[in-house]
């Protein structure tokens, strides 16, 4: 395991770019070599050791400890291995990531998973605006992989999302799935309007259909009708495997959903699904991980016991 702890007695800075500081690029490096690695601080070259204390041993896992809320592009370019962050991170988490797993025991900033191509990002806290969405000027957002947010998510979730799976357990701000191109968004809590405007393709699934606004309020979408979708148990099983609470096999037989297609204003064929909330509501609330805290138990036995400095 390699543990990098953010120093507190360093010159002030606005942003620190950690792209490339991933398990595969650090493997086999000595402590001195690790300290010499180049990073960008306020767009100027710096050495990793100037800002981070290093503790390395032979392992596939990298742990970043501290308040990384001003660190951008954490896990940038990651292809394999496990990267854990004990603290909150800044913008662009997982930019250019193709594989491996990132676990954030805290919040994350804007554009999380916007540049995700593969692998999985888990955030135990809240996410900022434009999660899995296209960056300004970009034609598409998240293009593969999986993003799981246990807390709340700010506006513009999955706007122009192209591919992959996003699961958000908490409430979601307006603009969700705007101009969405494809992919799947699964929502466990309330979602603010507008939802799915300009949506071309893709799926938005509300796990707790009883808990959200009536689908009749969804502008630009067809009148919701009940459909039986035989693919649904497969999707629910994958979603369940991403959540912390133990799986209840009886949940995976559910195929009947309210379904609405849109945004018809742009000829879109995206689908919004409202699952009958009964089966998912039966999941005891105390089994759900806390939305706003950063305890290690949220990620099971593999979480480290290192405390943020």
């Amino acid at each position, binding site marked *: 395991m390699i543990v990098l702890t953010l120093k507190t007695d360093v010159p002030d800075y606005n942003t620190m770019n950690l792209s490339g500081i991933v398990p595969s690029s650090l493997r086999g490096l000595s402590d001195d070599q690790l300290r010499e690695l180049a990073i960008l601080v306020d767009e100027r070259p710096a050495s990793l050791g100037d800002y981070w204390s290093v503790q390395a041993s032979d392992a596939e896992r990298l742990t970043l400890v501290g308040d990384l809320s001003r660190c951008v592009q954490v896990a940038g370019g990651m292809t394999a291995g496990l990267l854990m962050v004990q603290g909150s991170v800044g913008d662009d988490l997982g930019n250019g990531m193709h594989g491996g797993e990132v676990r954030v025991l805290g919040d994350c900033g804007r554009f999380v998973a916007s540049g995700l191509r593969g692998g999985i990002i888990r955030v135990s806290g809240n996410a900022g605006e434009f999660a899995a969405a296209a960056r300004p000027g970009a034609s598409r957002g998240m293009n593969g992989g999986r993003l799981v947010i246990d807390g709340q998510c700010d506006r513009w979730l999955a706007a122009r999302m192209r591919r992959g799976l996003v699961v958000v357990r908490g409430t979601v701000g307006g603009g969700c799935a705007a101009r969405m191109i494809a992919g799947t968004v699964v929502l466990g809590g309330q979602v603010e309007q507008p939802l799915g405007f300009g949506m071309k*393709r893709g799926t938005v699934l509300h796990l707790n259909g009883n808990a959200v606004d009536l689908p009749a309020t969804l502008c630009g979408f067809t009148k919701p009708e009940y459909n039986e*979708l*035989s*693919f649904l148990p497969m*999707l629910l*099983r994958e979603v369940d495997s991403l959540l912390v609470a133990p799986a209840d096999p009886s949940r995976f037989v559910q195929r009947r959903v309210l379904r609405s297609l849109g945004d018809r204003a742009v000829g879109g064929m995206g689908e919004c699904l409202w699952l009958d909330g009964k089966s998912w509501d039966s999941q005891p609330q105390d089994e759900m991980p806390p939305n706003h805290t950063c305890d290690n138990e949220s990620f099971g036995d593999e979480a480290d016991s290192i405390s943020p400095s």
Partner: protein
Amino acid sequence: MHINGVEIIDAFAEAFPMTATRLIITAEDRFWALRAAESMTGFATSVIGCGCEAGIEKEIEPEHTPDNRPGIAVLIFAVSGSQLEKQVVRRVGQCVLTCPSTSVFAGMQGEKRVALGSKLRYFGDGFQISKVIDGRRFWRVPVMDGEFVCEESTARSTAVGGGNFLVLSQSLTGALKACESAMDAMQQLPNVIMPFPGGVARSGSKVGSKYKMLTASTNDAFCPTLRPVTKSLLPAGVSAALEVVIDGLTEKDVARAMRVGIQAACEAGPRWGLKAITGGNYGGKLGPFHFHLHELLR
């Protein structure tokens, strides 16, 4: 060698390389899954005339299928990857897509792929939806009962076709009873199918014919009615011969199925007049897989 009084003739069965895939067909209930599987594996006894050899491998409980519905595993064998794909797409398109409530999934994983949903999706006429779940791509094709879910592709692997043994009996009834016992035992085994009706062929063939347009013709050496006029291989007292044909994913699978089938036939056969078991071969010229009965049963 004798088993339960039945002579095991010192012969070998000759088999040849094939390529195969497994599909999982699921449906609302077992009835419809079975109807689709039976339809899809119909007219698939021999690659010579049917383009492929196919059969039902086993039933799968709902908790072990991708969509938690009752499932049937089918195996399809062909002489090449392109032939296999052609047959799979055609058969799934005509027999599974059409069957109410069904879905179809890849039953094996590997690098060599056979198109499935990637071609059948066009039936959706633009309304089809792609979904990647747990790293696997599925197509949701709108149909009149909802959606037909079909995996993007399935894998194929090398396989062995044409494993066999011949049941030689005093009577047709005895030969049938011995084959039925063999089939009951062999159908419990994974990775094999017996593609002929009931698993059994009565029209064993030899290579070539007096007619130029035929590549194979009746195996006169095992036809009881031709015993007086041909070089017969039927032992004295035998008046009926039937051939159990086995396709398997590996040589080991075929060998095990042959062993289990022969032992089951020998257990039940003697009281119905079963006299001997032998193997069908073409002098070793057809295929590289030779299953010597004595070695198999030793």
